[in-house]
């Protein structure tokens, strides 16, 4: 190849690039790979799954698109049968769950779905060699067995009331996934399921493309092409939505506001269980002090945080359960009351020093508060918390670090944490408040230790009687108000902006994690083009 041909080739490439670039961009949204018609939907998301294999934890909370679970959640988070023909039969002692499976379901490669796929999925997840970091959620399972082609029976180690909520996790085909390495096989990138959509391509770090599965047992979706573009940067995502390349996107409150007056798009605010809180370590002489805990709990101005940090897209939080959930205990709301906070501290012997910071028995009311570096929302909350605490005479030093830096310090130093799973109150509260889980991984970071709470949490997960369960979680929330081992600050709404071209978009109550299953497209398979 001579220099001249190289030069010629380069010149041609550049010319072609510039021409196509100009053509593609001079007509925003005019179908060059953009929103072509109403049977194709392109959405912008902020995070991407590491894997698409349910065996490694993908889609464990449902809405996985490629797969179905035994059960699924409807718009109100009620359980509905999916691959199961009906809700499970639960034995008297609450330790046996029997699922009868839907007949005639096939995987997208045409192979029939049966009980052996269910057994294979659950057993593989629980196997020690499977690198699934969420398998702790299935801890209650003692065994899972197939009874014939269409019955699956789970036996639990102990009665566990919310177990059925876990069975929304996707079922993988044994005839494909069973024949390869579970951790690194091709299946993690090229999954095959029974779900409403089939994966056509996954360009890691860029996008996931799906097409409708014509053989889906629930009927073929009207939206034939569905693409999720992975765009980490909020501004770029908003720009691509505005240019018409995207039909919908998740946006932070500040950027979503820019679309408020747009008549062609709708903004959806998903209610969530997504909380931000401050851990108050029991093993620190300041944060372990009951008076300090109670004072901080009412010294924080939660309403101001919602208004200023979240642009109003959220709610004050008084515990893991949001105030609009049926599980919330009415009467445990705490008013912002700085005078009362000061009074509590005075009565307990925390006296204000010359610099405005209190001391007691030579101990200065001061502690560090860690937040994960680069997380703007957590940083804002940490700084707001510190400034509110200072008004009550308590010094909070906000510091940024990675989890690797924070982990060794969690036992005695405060952390700005987040979490939330809406399906059942046990999921958050058991991990967050059970004393035996103090310091177990990142669970119960504050080492909260309250015998009454421990007893109520045990009661709440064992009993199948809704009234008994409600009473148990009421006890937990009341104790948390009397002895706040965590100061809950806000529940954060998730905002989405979507083109107003379909009937069907709506939102479920969302968890802390932004998976692929959240957002107005949680039910994209049910969307219908609007009749204009």
């Amino acid at each position, binding site marked *: 190849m001579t220099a001249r041909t190289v030069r010629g080739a380069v010149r041609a490439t550049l010319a072609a690039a510039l021409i196509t*670039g100009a053509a593609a961009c001079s007509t925003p949204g005019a179908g060059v790979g953009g929103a072509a018609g109403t049977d194709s939907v392109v959405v912008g998301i902020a995070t991407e799954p590491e894997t698409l294999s349910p065996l490694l934890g993908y889609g464990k909370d449902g809405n996985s698109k490629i797969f179905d679970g035994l059960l699924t959640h409807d718009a109100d988070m009620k359980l509905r049968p999916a691959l199961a023909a009906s809700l499970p039969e639960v034995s008297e002692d609450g330790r046996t769950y029997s699922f009868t499976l839907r007949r005639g379901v096939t995987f997208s490669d045409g192979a029939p779905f049966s009980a052996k796929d269910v057994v294979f999925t659950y057993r593989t997840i629980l196997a020690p060699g499977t690198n699934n*970091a969420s398998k702790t959620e299935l801890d209650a399972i003692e065994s899972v067995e197939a009874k014939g082609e269409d019955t699956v029976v789970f036996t639990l180690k102990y009665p566990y009331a919310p177990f059925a909520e876990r069975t929304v996790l996707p079922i993988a085909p044994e005839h494909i996934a069973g024949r390869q390495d579970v951790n690194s096989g091709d299946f993690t990138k090229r999954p095959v399921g029974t779900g409403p959509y089939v994966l056509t391509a996954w360009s890691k770090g860029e996008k996931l493309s799906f097409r409708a599965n014509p053989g889906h047992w629930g009927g073929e979706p009207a939206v034939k092409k569905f693409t999720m573009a992975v765009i980490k940067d909020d501004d770029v995502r908003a720009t691509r939505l505005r240019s018409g390349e995207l039909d919908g996107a998740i946006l932070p409150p500040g950027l979503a506001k820019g679309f408020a007056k747009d008549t062609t798009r709708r903004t959806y605010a998903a209610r969530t269980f997504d909380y931000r809180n401050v851990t108050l370590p029991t093993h620190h002489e300041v944060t372990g002090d009951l008076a300090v805990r109670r004072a901080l709990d009412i010294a924080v101005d939660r309403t101001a945080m919602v208004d200023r940090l979240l642009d109003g897209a959220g709610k004050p939080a008084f515990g893991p359960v949001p105030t609009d959930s049926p599980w919330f205990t009415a009467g445990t709301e705490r008013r912002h009351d700085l005078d009362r906070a000061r009074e509590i501290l005075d009565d307990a012997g925390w006296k204000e020093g010359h610099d405005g910071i209190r001391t007691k028995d030579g101990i200065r009311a001061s502690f560090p508060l860690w937040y994960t570096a680069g997380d703007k929302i957590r940083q804002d909350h940490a700084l707001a918390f510190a400034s509110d605490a200072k008004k009550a005479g308590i010094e909070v030093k906000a510091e940024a670090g990675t989890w690797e*830096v924070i982990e060794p310090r969690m036992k005695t130093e405060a952390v700005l944490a987040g979490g939330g799973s809406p399906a059942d109150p046990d999921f958050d509260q058991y991990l967050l408040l059970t004393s035996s889980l103090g310091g177990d*991984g*990142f669970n119960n970071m504050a080492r909260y230790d309250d015998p009454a709470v421990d007893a109520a949490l045990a009661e709440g997960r064992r009993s199948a009687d809704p009234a008994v369960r409600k009473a148990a979680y009421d006890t937990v929330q009341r104790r948390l108000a009397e002895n706040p081992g965590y100061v809950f600050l806000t529940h954060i709404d998730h905002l989405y902006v979507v083109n107003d071209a379909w009937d069907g978009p709506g939102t479920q109550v969302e968890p802390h994690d932004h998976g692929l299953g959240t957002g107005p497209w949680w039910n994209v398979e049910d969307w219908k083009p609007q009749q204009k």
Partner: protein
Amino acid sequence: MARMAGRRTLAAAPVLLAVTFGVFAIAALSPFDPVKAYAGTAGLTASQAELDQLRINLGVDRPLAARWWDWLASALTGDLGTSAVMRQPVSDVIAERLGWSVLLAACAFAIAVLTGTVLGVLAARRTGGALDRTVSALAYTLEAAPAFWLALLALWFFSVRLGALPPGGLTDAGSDTVTFAQVASHLVLPALVLSASQLPWFFLYVRQGVADALGEDPVRGARARGLAERRVLLGHALRSGMLPTLTLIGSRVPELITGALLVETVFSFPGIAAATVQAATSVDFPLLAALTVLASAAVLAGNLLSDLLYGLVDPRVGFDG
């Protein structure tokens, strides 16, 4: 010449070996925890027992030397191991991504060489003239600007403000197929930024080389014989002025690689460089080691190319390494 190439290739083996061990050692010392990186958000609600099991499964609980030795032994048999962050074999990661990176680097390099040469010749014609002063000042500024900063600036200006070029990726979000037109339009910004970070160096070298050549006897002679200015510039001055530049092209490889690392990350370009950054931040030993070997080999090959070219174009230099 062949002897020198052979000798260099042999000498590269111990260097690469040391590099792999260095990667494992540095990764083991790094503050990042591979288990946390692997588990992601799920790790924050996992039990300690589960996290410990994961540590054993990923093999990161074993001593550094043992891990390195195992990796090396299987790598020599052609098995590069499994990438934890990508959840697929390392060889697949490289196969999927290397081509895109080579395309990006080649385009950027071609643009930089062409533009640098043209501007260099024009500036050398009238050293100290308006064009020379402007372009030289620009070149020094560019030389000092970090590539990621240039990339962010270009992204903000061309994509966010003007909406003229796609801001990232390889194809538009809505298209499933990788077509030439799609890739070409998505390649423009990253390639331009990467070439801009390489450009100053070429420009300055060509400018100096051509300016020197213009002052030399053969060129003065050609001018005196009344040859056309174009012939003099392109035929005589450029030919001898380009020699030092050509010989040093190979030694630019390291900069090209680091530039690509930053540029690919900013433009979420699915190349090998972006994967390197991911592998580093999540302490993905097998992938990181393989990619570092690849990069080191490229650097060594670049240096060898430089020396060979130098020996070829300058008869005074022998091939004795």
